[in-house]
């Protein structure tokens, strides 16, 4: 520990601290622009110059290491003169266009110029003008003359996003921030650069000119978009969501959110919103009052149950529905005598049902990722499925963590990978089995039964060895591992690997409330998400889910919905597909218009309130379900608040949920045989199509991640099909077919083609990880 005195206040700080660290510990404010606690030290803005005893010159607080007994003066004449000098320099070429600047009112330069700027400029020369840049649909770089060259955006790309897309070109006063020859910024974390920009150089394109910062009310919320449950500040004006920003929570999202979380709000204000209950009568859709709609729904369901029994109805819910909604939906189904409820819409292997020891979860806290010595991620489009977990692993890998990836696509995760294996989905279990066997051999313990034939290679040995070294290690199962046909085997193998190596086993989780959905027991006692459509039911309740896009195989689902006597859709949106298959559509609130709870992947219980009034006749889902329960004369629907529901499910005042356990009982290892001879599909869920909100945000649709799917395959596969990259191909699965453009992608494993799911252009196809036929179109 070192002793330091700043402006007469004494503090003890750890070795290696900077003066800025010490000042923040003491609560002394030192003006700064380029310094950011999450970025490397640049010391280029010079705003944080302070006086240090015995130093002849003022020193930058951000870069000056504390020495024992150091005395620092942040407000001495020397310091203030230096700070004012820098401020003058920063302003001479700045356009001072605050009245028309989007950053106005929340601009660090504006704020500090009040404190440190001169009343009048001594600069009478011509101001330097910097040309605007177009970097895509999310970030506006329209007024680059405002840039003060702090390079926070550049460092963010290099250090946090893991990809340098912005750079500072040229030199001297002609330095300017730009992309390479006008390309777009494509990182899935790019929006954070807007937050980092201390001036109005990088602003939000979708938000631009829609509101002034002082008109906005700031409300807390939680992101439903992925399993991290990023904490949000939702900014609203006149009951419209105008903007979404990260709410700093070091334990959860640090100070970042993904672009999906930042810009999905566009969907909330879109014309696609359903604002009044609708029922189909005589083939015609009619808007009706809530009581009419609920009577209609209740009667329909009741009639089916009366005539055909409870098993004739089934419910499918989204994983981003709240704990309260999922619980009440389950209770409703149970009340009607149905055990057919599920939320695992993309899952195809349900072999762990009734064998899991608890709700699948990360196996650790998110903040513990940084302490890992090694991590193996199995079956994941990591960066796109879990942008913030990938970010944590990226930072960890830069220090000492050996991060390995065993997956079905060689996409660049922008993480320094220690080991990497890319195999066909059908081979994923075999590849993991090889790691298990290698670990057993390396440790000198018996190779578990069933793994005798697993073929160990150098890479699997290397990965296994990494999991045997160090204190803290983890195996994470990603979305592919959950969704593919061998999910049970992968889970069991991961547990074996964990048992042998001592590594923690965890799931990355598909959506914002995956853990909560397990805990709310929105799980089948009878037909699961696949069975409830394979054996068609007469009545369906679809809660927040869009089955044509959200299911592992939409074909049987759509067929079942078509034949059903009654399909009830509860959703914030009026989708053309739902208008086809539904009989009643009830407008339930998105996360911004209801109170509720998400349990994130580490088990953290995060409750939130609605931030705006429900749009039109929209009602919070938990209230709709409660009323529906009452209309159906079911017991136990007398809740008066969502908190009451939550406390019943999770217990009152719980920070972390109980009953999280990745253990399995009674699963035996039975490795899959040789790969099928035909082509296999690998389906990712594109980041900006993963949920109903994201897929309705126009700005996200215009990004590089928003382009329509192509068919991607390695050169040999394309040659076998008889096409070249760029040609059109006819793609068939089951009774569905479509025409896609073929693209060369040598990272796609042999015998596989990559065709994304969750997109209208591929929604008619079948299994995400199933057989597929491709021919020249």
């Amino acid at each position: 520990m070192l002793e330091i005195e700043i402006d007469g206040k004494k503090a003890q700080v750890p070795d290696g601290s900077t003066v800025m660290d010490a000042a923040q510990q003491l609560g002394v404010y030192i003006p700064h622009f380029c310094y950011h606690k999450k970025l490397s030290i640049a010391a280029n803005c010079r705003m944080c110059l302070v006086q240090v005893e015995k130093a002849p010159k003022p020193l930058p607080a951000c870069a000056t290491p504390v020495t024992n007994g150091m005395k620092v003066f942040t407000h001495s004449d020397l310091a203030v003169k230096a700070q004012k000098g820098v401020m003058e320099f920063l302003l001479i070429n700045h356009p001072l266009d605050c009245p028309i600047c989007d950053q106005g009112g929340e601009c660090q330069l504006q704020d500090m110029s009040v404190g440190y700027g001169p009343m009048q400029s001594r600069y009478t020369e011509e101001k330097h003008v910097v040309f605007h840049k177009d970097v895509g649909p999310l970030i506006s770089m329209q007024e680059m003359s405002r840039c003060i060259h702090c390079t926070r955006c550049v460092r963010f790309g290099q250090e946090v996003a893991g990809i340098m897309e912005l750079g500072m070109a040229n030199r001297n006063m002609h330095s300017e921030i730009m992309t390479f020859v006008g390309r777009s910024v494509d990182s899935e974390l790019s929006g954070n650069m807007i937050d980092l920009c201390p001036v109005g150089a990088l602003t939000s394109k979708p938000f631009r000119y829609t509101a002034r910062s002082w008109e906005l009310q700031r409300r807390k919320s939680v992101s439903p978009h992925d399993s991290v449950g990023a904490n949000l500040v939702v900014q609203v004006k006149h009951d419209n969501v105008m903007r979404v920003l990260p709410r700093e929570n070091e334990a959860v999202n640090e100070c970042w959110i993904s672009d999906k979380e930042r810009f999905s709000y566009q969907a909330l204000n879109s014309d696609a919103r359903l604002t009044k209950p609708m029922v189909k009568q005589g083939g015609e859709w009619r808007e009706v009052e809530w009581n009419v709609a609920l009577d209609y729904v209740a009667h329909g369901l009741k009639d089916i149950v009366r005539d055909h029994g409870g098993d004739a109805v089934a419910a499918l819910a989204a994983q981003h529905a709240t704990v309260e909604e999922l619980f009440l939906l389950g209770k409703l189904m149970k009340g009607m005598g149905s055990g057919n409820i599920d939320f695992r819409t993309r899952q195809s292997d349900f072999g762990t049902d009734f064998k899991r020891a608890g709700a699948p979860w990360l196996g650790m806290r998110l903040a513990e990722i940084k302490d890992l010595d090694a991590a193996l991620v199995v079956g994941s489009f990591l960066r796109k499925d879990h942008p913030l977990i990938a970010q944590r692993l990226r930072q960890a890998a830069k220090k000492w963590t050996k991060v390995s990836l065993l997956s079905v696509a060689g996409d660049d995760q922008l993480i320094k990978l220690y080991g990497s294996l890319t195999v066909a989905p059908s081979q994923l279990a075999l590849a993991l089995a090889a790691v298990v066997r290698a670990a057993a051999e390396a440790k000198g313990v018996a190779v578990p039964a069933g793994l005798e034939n697993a073929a160990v290679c150098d890479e699997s040995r290397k990965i296994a060895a990494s999991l045997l070294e160090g204190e803290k290690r983890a195996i994470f199962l990603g979305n592919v591992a959950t969704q593919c046909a061998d999910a049970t085997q992968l889970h069991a193998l991961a547990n074996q690997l964990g048992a042998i190596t001592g590594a923690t086993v965890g799931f990355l989780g598909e959506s914002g409330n995956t853990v909560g959905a397990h805990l709310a027991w929105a799980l089948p006692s009878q037909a699961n998400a696949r069975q409830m459509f394979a054996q068609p039911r007469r009545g369906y309740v679809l809660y927040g889910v869009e089955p044509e896009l959200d299911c592992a195989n939409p074909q049987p689902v759509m067929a079942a919905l078509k034949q059903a006597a009654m399909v009830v859709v509860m959703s914030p949106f009026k989708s053309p597909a739902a208008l086809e298959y539904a009989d009643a559509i009830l407008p339930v609130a998105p996360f911004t218009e209801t109170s509720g709870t998400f349990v994130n992947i580490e088990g953290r219980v995060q409750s939130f309130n609605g931030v705006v009034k429900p749009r039109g006749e929209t009602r919070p889902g938990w209230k709709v379900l409660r009323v529906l329960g009452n209309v159906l004369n079911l017991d136990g629907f007398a809740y008066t608040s969502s908190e009451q529901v939550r406390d019943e499910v999770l217990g009152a005042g719980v920070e972390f949920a109980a009953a999280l356990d990745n253990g399995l009982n009674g699963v035996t290892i039975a490795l899959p045989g040789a790969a099928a001879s035909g082509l296999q599909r690998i389906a990712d869920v594109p980041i900006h199509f993963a949920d109903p909100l994201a897929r309705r945000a126009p700005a996200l649709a215009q990004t590089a991640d928003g382009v329509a799917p192509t068919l991607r395959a390695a050169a040999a596969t394309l040659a076998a099909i008889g096409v070249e990259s760029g040609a059109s191909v006819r793609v068939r699965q089951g009774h569905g077919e479509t025409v896609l453009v073929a693209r060369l992608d040598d990272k796609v494993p042999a015998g596989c083609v990559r065709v994304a799911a969750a997109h209208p252009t591929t929604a008619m196809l079948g299994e995400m990880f199933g057989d597929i036929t491709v021919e020249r179109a």
Partner: protein
Amino acid sequence: MAMLGAINPVLMAGLNGDDSWRLKDYVARGGYEQLKRILQTGMTQEDVIGEVKKSVLRGRGGAGFPTGLKWSFMPRSFPGDKYVVCNTDEGEPGTFKDRDIMRYNPHAVIEGMIIAGFAMGANRGYNYVHGEIWEIYKRFEEALDEARAAGLLGQNILGTQFGFELFAHHGYGAYICGEETALLESIEGKKGQPRFKPPFPASFGLYGRPTTINNTETFASIPFILKMGGEEFLNLGKPNNGGTKLFSVSGHVNRPGNYEIPLGTPFSTLLEMCGGMRGGRKLKAVIPGGSSAPVMPADVIMDCTMDYDSISKGGSMLGSGAVIVMDETVCMVKALERLSFFYHEESCGQCTPCREGTAWMYKVVHRIENGQGKPEDLDLLNSVLGNIAGRTICALGDAAAFPVQSFLKHFGSEFEYHIEHKTCLVPKDVQWAGSGFHKIPA
């Protein structure tokens, strides 16, 4: 010819122009004998550093930091890669000595770097060569090939356990890369933007490894210091200012060029060696250490000897030993305008005071030169340079501020005259008269 003149030359002794740079010539002059002696007689790292310390060789790049002391900062026993880097990015206006050392005596630089590598436990070296001297860079690459072929570079040098790899890195036009941390960034394949110090290169240098950076002339002096002994080298000069030094004399002398003279030689002697003032005109001012050094009026410099201490006492810096001589026909406003443009142009753009301030200073001086000056401009310039100096990441801010400060201090009346009369104090008919084409007398 290598030298236009010399007194007791060391580095450039025995050279006869373009024919004497090859390995065989250097060996004939006693080259690589010191490396052999060190490796074959069991000299220790401390022995070598001790000899360099005794010589009081001060860094020849401009800062004048004692070389032996710098070498002793290197964590010699630190495991892993360590680097020795030579700074031949000679871009300081007025300086052209390293080019001649590299042109006529490249093996002295190579031997000096190998010895430095030995002394500091470094296994790899780079010589960063100024972008504009491609031909010299190519010659140095040839010299390296010769040394490699002769077993003087690479593994097991001269059959010993000691190994040292040396490569040349070619710059491509950026003055700032003469700043040692910008130079390291540049070798790493980045923009030449200086790093904030601490950490210093000795602990966090090239690729984050311990690194020592010295100037070309510094390295070239090492074999000679070991040959004659540190003390004798020191005695060539004067106390605290050891050895001879190359002075690059440019401007209004009859014979501009490089002169190797002992430190402590009177400026008047150097001026005489240069054939005196061109056209017999009167000396007006001298910038004694490259354009970043404060300008000295004629009467002050005429009383100085050419060494670190004397020039410092006279209010300037010996710097790189680049002596820019200006006669009475020079308009000091125009001279400063050109220098201010240079610093503005060469600012790396990284930190605020330098990026913004150098451009501002240039614009104001440019205005004054062009008859648009305002009475308050001189105070403004002094204030702006005060806000740059000592506030920047590297010394370029100071380097840009010092000329402005010293020109205003010593020749302020010329600036005032410009502002008031919208024209130059030096009469139109003689203005810049000494600055035309000039043939060096044989």
